[in-house]
């Protein structure tokens, strides 16, 4: 006689076994070991996905399980419907076609970059229901709590007949997804670019994988982190100088994460020149949680960098990474092993500083990339750009920031992560970066969100850096000072023009606001000549010819 | 108009002009003059082969017929828009043709061109626009690019461009506008051979187009600007 709880346990397992039996009968002799021919992909999906299933479709801001996405939209909505989709990133049109076709109805996700506008339109027309918008770490975490996938559709570079997967340098989200699915009665299907006798290394063990489909085309992958040095402006050089001298050197920042914009690319390219000239080599920027930005090559070659752990890889950087196993995490095959979940955790807990750009900052220091007509989500920035309340180990930068905080708000000694927002006061087309109210409020109202989608909360931000200077919010005694400190670097935006000039001068006297000249930086020195590379080609040369940029970035 | 009928009207005293592909080549007699005829037809695009063939024709005239006038008959939809022609350096072939025309001029060949059908930008620069006298039939179409394409590139609406075209010859296509701007010496109507003989009487080997544009009120700055450069310290 079975006990009731054992009955429940068996239910899930039986359900999976029924699905696998259905798949076996549909595929018949076409199934060899775990290999399913591409032309049977749709039938396989119909066999293993039941109405209402939670389906995780892999895809992030770089690699995409695009063939499986294209197959999923071809299933018969009579058989497969009401799906609850789990996705790190909505990147492909198919990801939203699912809802128009009546295949899926509910979505939990993290980031939607390229589909943000269409997603907003579909939410407006009630064609799609959003469960929640997460950070990457939150979404991965929920896979292990209440959003465990019934079926995971993942992507890898190659596989063998036993289903061992090789992801190459773009391992990214795959381990987190597969682990949650495979160990909780789920089914894992992988699309691969090629079948091999023996994978170069096992990134996902074969007994965690149920089916492998050789894709007719290599999966889509985006070079998201390549910034052409030719496009860095002299204003960005000036801001980078302030970041290095006014923050990195000031706190002795050794462990950090950078955003992906041109502002931070400028910092990377100033390390072997400007930072070196200040004698900072070895004193700052040794350890990174970072994608392999091509603009890091000169700093790596100059001996600035001791280690980089990456969320994902970057197209064209493969050979360079393989040649620098002293810096990057690489496998026995020579290629990098990335892991988004671990790198996000590293960025949150092991880094002393996050610096990145944003679209809008309000007078409390809250920042958001939300605009009215786009639901773009969060990605990883909120976890990078947040003080890690659970952190206990100390470092000089962390302690100094904590000390500065306690100078204004006494409390028990503890440290503080440095969270820096780096923005020009106006973006292109004269869009102000400083606003009275974030567009996030209106978006929340429009999309019926419980709270406005704030990327980084004001109380997590320690510094705001603009071309006008640095506001150190740690040193502000109260909300009023904080607001004036922000206005004091908000330039000619309406918020900046509305400053209390006397109070701003007082804050400057106290070092809460620092201008370039206060840091001993001559604005005339802020020229592109300071950049360690002026073009993509310079980066290739710095890499000794190992970096092979995608054709769209080349001019030779 | 068909090139044959144009040639017959230009050279009523007989001609030996033939077509090979889209190239027209030969000579004709017009009153006291024997003129070399070189041209294109079928609104052809000018690619490397055609530019080279026209250049060969010019060099041939220079060699074999000293001082013989050259008449270019222009009908082209522009330079050939092919990757392959760009790969081979189409601009170099066009420039070569222009150099041959200039060499002919310097060696005493009067150069006349007649746009009898269509003339577009790149295809026109290297021959027709190199002439001492550049003329067009009144119905000929001359332009840089179509109004729609121009609207797209300049981000100015087509309506606004055609509106502007009414008050200024700069914006809109058309032979009349090129006349006003000095880009054409004359529109030829009626007795074409008389027009040609007239042109051959009044050859001026200096580039007088900015003067014409100024006199005709279509291009008021080119002339004075050049004068000011010449007069600067």
């Amino acid at each position, binding site marked *: 006689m079975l006990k009731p709880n054992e009955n429940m346990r068996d239910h899930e397992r039986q359900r999976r076994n029924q699905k696998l039996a259905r798949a076996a009968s549909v595929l018949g002799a076409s199934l060899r070991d775990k290999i399913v021919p591409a032309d049977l992909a749709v039938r396989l999906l119909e066999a293993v996905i039941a109405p209402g299933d939670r389906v995780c479709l892999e895809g992030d801001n770089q690699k995409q399980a695009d063939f499986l996405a294209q197959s999923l939209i071809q299933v018969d909505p009579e058989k497969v419907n009401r799906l609850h989709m789990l996705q790190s990133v909505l990147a492909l049109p198919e990801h939203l076609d699912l809802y128009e076709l009546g295949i899926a109805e509910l979505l939990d996700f993290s980031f939607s970059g390229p589909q943000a506008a269409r997603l907003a339109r579909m939410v407006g027309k009630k064609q799609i229901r959003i469960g929640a918008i997460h950070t990457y770490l939150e979404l991965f975490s929920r896979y292990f709590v209440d959003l465990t996938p019934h079926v995971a559709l993942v992507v890898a570079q190659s596989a063998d007949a036993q289903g061992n997967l090789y992801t190459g340098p773009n391992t990214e989200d795959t381990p987190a997804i597969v682990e949650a699915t495979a160990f909780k009665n789920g089914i894992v299907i992988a699309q691969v670019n090629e079948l091999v006798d023996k994978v170069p290394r096992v990134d996902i063990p074969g007994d965690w994988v149920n089916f492998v489909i050789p894709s007719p085309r290599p999966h889509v992958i985006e070079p998201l982190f390549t910034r052409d040095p030719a496009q860095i*402006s002299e*204003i960005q050089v000036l801001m980078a100088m302030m970041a290095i001298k006014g923050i990195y050197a000031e706190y002795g920042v050794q462990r950090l994460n950078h955003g992906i914009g041109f502002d931070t690319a400028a910092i990377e390219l100033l390390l072997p020149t400007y930072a070196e000239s200040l004698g900072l080599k070895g004193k700052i920027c040794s350890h990174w949680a970072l994608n392999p930005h091509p603009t890091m090559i000169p700093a790596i070659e100059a001996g600035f960098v001791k280690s980089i752990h990456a969320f994902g890889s970057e197209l064209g950087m493969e050979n360079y990474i393989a040649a620098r196993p002293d810096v990057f995490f690489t496998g026995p095959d020579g290629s990098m092993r990335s892991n988004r979940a671990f790198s996000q955790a590293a960025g949150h807990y092991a880094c002393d500083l996050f610096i990145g750009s944003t679209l809008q900052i309000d007078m409390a220091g809250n920042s958001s990339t939300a605009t009215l007509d786009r639901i773009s989500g969060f990605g990883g920035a909120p976890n990078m750009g947040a003080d890690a309340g659970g952190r206990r180990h100390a470092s000089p930068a962390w302690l100094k920031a904590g000390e500065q905080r306690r100078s204004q708000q006494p409390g028990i000694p503890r440290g503080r992560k440095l969270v820096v927002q780096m923005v020009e006061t*106006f973006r292109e*087309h*004269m869009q102000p970066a400083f606003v009275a109210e974030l567009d996030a409020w209106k978006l929340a109202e429009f999309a019926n969100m419980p709270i406005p989608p704030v990327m980084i909360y004001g109380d997590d931000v320690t510094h705001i850096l603009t071309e006008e200077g640095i506001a150190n919010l740690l040193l502000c005694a109260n909300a009023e000072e904080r607001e004036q400190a922000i206005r004091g670097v908000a*330039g*000619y935006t309406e918020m900046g023009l509305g400053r209390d000039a006397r109070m701003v001068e007082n804050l400057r006297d106290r070092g809460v606001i620092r201008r370039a000249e206060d840091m001993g930086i001559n*604005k005339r020195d802020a020229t592109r000549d300071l950049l360690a590379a002026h073009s993509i080609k310079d980066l290739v040369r710095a890499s000794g010819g190992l970096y092979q940029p995608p054709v769209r970035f080349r001019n030779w | 108009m068909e090139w044959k009928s144009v040639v017959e009207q230009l050279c009523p005293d007989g001609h030996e002009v033939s077509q090979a592909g889209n190239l027209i080549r030969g000579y004709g007699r017009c009153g006291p003059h024997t003129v070399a005829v070189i041209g294109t037809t079928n609104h052809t695009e000018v690619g490397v082969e055609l530019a080279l063939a026209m250049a060969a024709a010019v060099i041939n005239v220079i060699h074999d017929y000293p001082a013989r006038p050259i008449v270019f008959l222009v009908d082209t939809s522009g330079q050939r828009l092919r990757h392959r022609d760009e790969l081979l350096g189409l601009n170099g072939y066009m420039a070569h043709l222009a150099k041959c025309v200039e060499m002919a001029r310097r060696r005493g060949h009067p150069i006349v061109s007649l746009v009898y059908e269509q003339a577009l930008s790149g295809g026109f620069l290297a021959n027709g626009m190199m002439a001492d006298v550049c003329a067009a039939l009144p119905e000929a179409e001359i332009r840089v690019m179509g109004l729609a394409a121009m609207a797209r590139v300049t981000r100015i609406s087509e309506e606004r461009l055609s509106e502007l075209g009414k008050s200024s010859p700069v914006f809109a296509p058309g032979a009349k506008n090129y006349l006003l701007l000095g880009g054409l010496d004359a529109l030829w109507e009626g007795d074409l051979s008389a027009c040609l003989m007239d042109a051959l009487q009044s050859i001026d080997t200096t580039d007088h187009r900015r003067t014409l544009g100024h006199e005709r009120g279509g291009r008021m700055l080119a002339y004075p600007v050049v004068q000011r450069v010449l007069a600067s310290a």
Partner: protein
Amino acid sequence: MENLKYRFDGGTPTRGVTAIVGVLGSGNLEVLVEPVALGGACEIEVSTAARGFGSIWQAVMKDFFARHRVGDIRVSVNDAGATPAIVSLRLDQAIETYIAQGKSKT
């Protein structure tokens, strides 16, 4: 297109040689500085592709004059949507070039 004019009185007459700085390209501007007897005033003319930013230009120019307090000069600006940061940078470069050229010529 929008044309804006500003005049600041009470500057120090500043000798120099006509200077031009910058390029009228997207997100950029060109600044021309010329010596003109204006009784110590500084006159500024702006021609900009972006409409509706008069108050920002006013503030940028006021700060520019406060920084340099130059008189007897005319500043002419052609703008293609530059941000205030770029505008301020170019204005400073233009004045510095104007003064430096004046010194090298005397």
